[in-house]
């Protein structure tokens, strides 16, 4: 479709192009423009306001020597790994159980999935209440007679991040379950019949036949969860506020704080560029794989 053979190429399909203007503007200005702006300005010494004094990799050098960032990054790793592993495993097991032609499937699904409808702020506040040592689980168990029982992960800098994991799992596992269930329902019934005829135990069928067949579902789920994990912000704000100390800080909070409170935009932008890079590392291989998969079809 070169311009020489179709001189009126711009006007061809004009309505569709006009209709797509918001999308084109969003793509060019926001997704490409803003991202490039952020990456470029992350190499400057911008304070409260953007300025073009380039300082090379200084902001990155500082970033990786700042304990708070390192804690944030490690926390994201802990939160990420636990969330990925547990939500995938629990989500799959629940989906597999739900797929056993059980009664009340609708009721169970409603219960597993409702937290996903709630905001992270609500999720954070509820779990804060349940985990408060003076009133929550610790108190309940102590009242039962176990007076030395201690479960105060919110107040303990070593375990605070796991409180975020617990709340995050409560919020998101239902989603994984729903995705997995859709995947399981997509498996051909004949496979089950065949494995039953061959006398293969159910768990083996799942592990060696069904799960490999559901690879695309698993990958999509993992990519979805991962990008959500990198973004985690509201949940931390509501549940722990990043404390005690800096024990449950996460990168998204670091960015916000440096941009608007510490008057060190360059540092905030460097941190957000690292967040972007992390996401790209997850998404690009997936996108390439999808693309190749699409070609094969």
């Amino acid at each position, binding site marked *: 479709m070169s311009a020489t053979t179709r001189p009126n190429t711009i006007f061809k399909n004009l309505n569709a192009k006009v209709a797509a203007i918001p999308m084109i503007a969003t793509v060019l200005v926001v997704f490409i423009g803003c991202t490039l702006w952020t990456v470029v300005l992350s190499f400057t010494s911008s304070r409260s306001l953007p300025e073009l004094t380039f300082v090379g990799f200084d902001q990155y050098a500082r970033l990786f020597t700042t304990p708070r960032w390192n804690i944030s990054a490690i926390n994201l790793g802990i939160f990420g790994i636990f969330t990925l592993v547990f939500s995938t495993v629990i989500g799959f097991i629940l989906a597999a159980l739900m797929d056993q032609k059980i009664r009340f499937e609708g009721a169970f699904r409603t219960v597993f999935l409702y937290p996903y409808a709630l905001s992270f702020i609500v999720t954070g506040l509820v779990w804060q209440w349940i985990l408060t040592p003076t009133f929550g689980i610790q108190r309940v168990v102590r009242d039962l007679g176990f007076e030395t029982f201690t479960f105060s992960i919110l*107040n303990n800098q070593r375990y605070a991040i796991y409180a975020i994991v617990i709340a995050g799992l409560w919020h998101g596992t239902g989603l994984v379950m729903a995705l997995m269930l859709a995947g399981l329902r997509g498996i051909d019934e004949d496979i089950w019949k065949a494995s039953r005829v061959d006398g293969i135990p159910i768990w083996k069928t799942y592990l060696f036949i069904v799960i490999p067949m559901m690879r695309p579902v698993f990958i999509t789920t993992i990519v979805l969860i991962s990008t959500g994990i990198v973004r985690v912000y509201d949940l931390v704000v509501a549940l722990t*506020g990043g404390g005690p100390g800096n024990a449950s800080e996460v990168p998204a909070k670091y960015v916000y704080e440096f941009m608007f409170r510490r008057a060190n935009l360059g540092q905030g932008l460097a941190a957000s560029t690292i967040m972007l890079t992390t996401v790209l590392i997850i998404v690009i291989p997936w996108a390439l794989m999808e693309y190749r998969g699409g070609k094969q079809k």
Partner: protein
Amino acid sequence: MRYSTAFAALAASTILITANNANAADLEVTHWWTAGGEAAAAKVLAESYDKLGGDKWVDGAIAGSGSTATPIIVSRILGGNPMGATQLNTGRDAEDLVKAGLMTDLTEIATKEGWADFIRPSKLFDACKYEGKIYCVPVNIHTEQWMWVNPEAFKAGGVPVPANWQEFVAAGPKLKEKDIIPLATGDAWQVNLIFNDMVSSIGGKDLFLKVYRDKDATAAASPEMTAVFEAYAQARELADPGYVGRSWNEATSLVIGGKASAQIMGDWAQGEFGVAGKIAGKDYDCLLGLGNNPVLNTGGDAFYFPKNENPEVTKAQLKLASMLVSKETQVAFNLAKGSLPIRGDVDLAAANACMKKGIAVLNKLDNVVPSVNQLLSPDSKLEVEDLSKEFFADASMTVEDAQARFVSIIEQAQ
């Protein structure tokens, strides 16, 4: 809550009145004065301003401490949707905004009214100057080097009321035995306040200035500083695990109720004692400089006036600026807030025992230092806060490790 209801009514009536008054401006004022005593002080300002006639104070209180409010305020100014006026801590939080020309220049009115002649200490006023021009109005002097103690709680613990930090530390175990929290504190900035207090109270005035003003890394590595970290480690032991997520006024009410024996907090805590009807010197007492070194810093709050396109708003801004430094406002406001007035020429007969102690130090000037807010950039200041809150939360972090990190923060500080 009483005040807040009155405030809501006030705000509602404001809208009605201004609808008929084309020449007056609604001045939206943002601040984070939301605890009982603070709210009372904000109400004093709002009412006095409205009494001037014409322009109206529209309250834009932001809940939470400065750590929540500052980003919201700054992002609004950066986003070109400025409020009419805003409270910030006197210091360098708005430095870049001033440099970028986003704040109304107050030089003219300041010269006319001769602010420089009566604002004391003059260092406080310096925080508002940039290239010889004036960009903010300090409204009060907050001193942070106080330990508030409840004598009843010490009596219940069977120990004498301490006169200094060392005695307080010694009393700790007995208080704990009686289920009294020796030191009530709260999240992040509150433990950082303890740390900065200790730099001047345990380390002394010279150490404070060397470290924070001169950014002297040798001083930060000195044995004097080690002593500060050791005292801070003791404070870590004296606090209860429930400090996480506690707001400062909750901590104060623990002291008021005798559940805790002491709190290290700025003089605004007095506002809470006042609201609870407690009398200084009788129901509660105060140890200036933790009873060790009576050095006070002169932090506080200041009002900034972001540039506005509407000339009516600019006029209203100047009017508010002038009112904030006036004698009447200074007395009424500071009595409610528990802070000290920025002018030395006002009558503070109503000041209580603790405030008088503060005024005495302040008048002599030898033991007055600028606040950390004035000396360090927001970035460096919060690096110190990151370290101090991490240290406080993590009992396994040693004094040596913490001091090593402190040295590197001071080396790079701006």
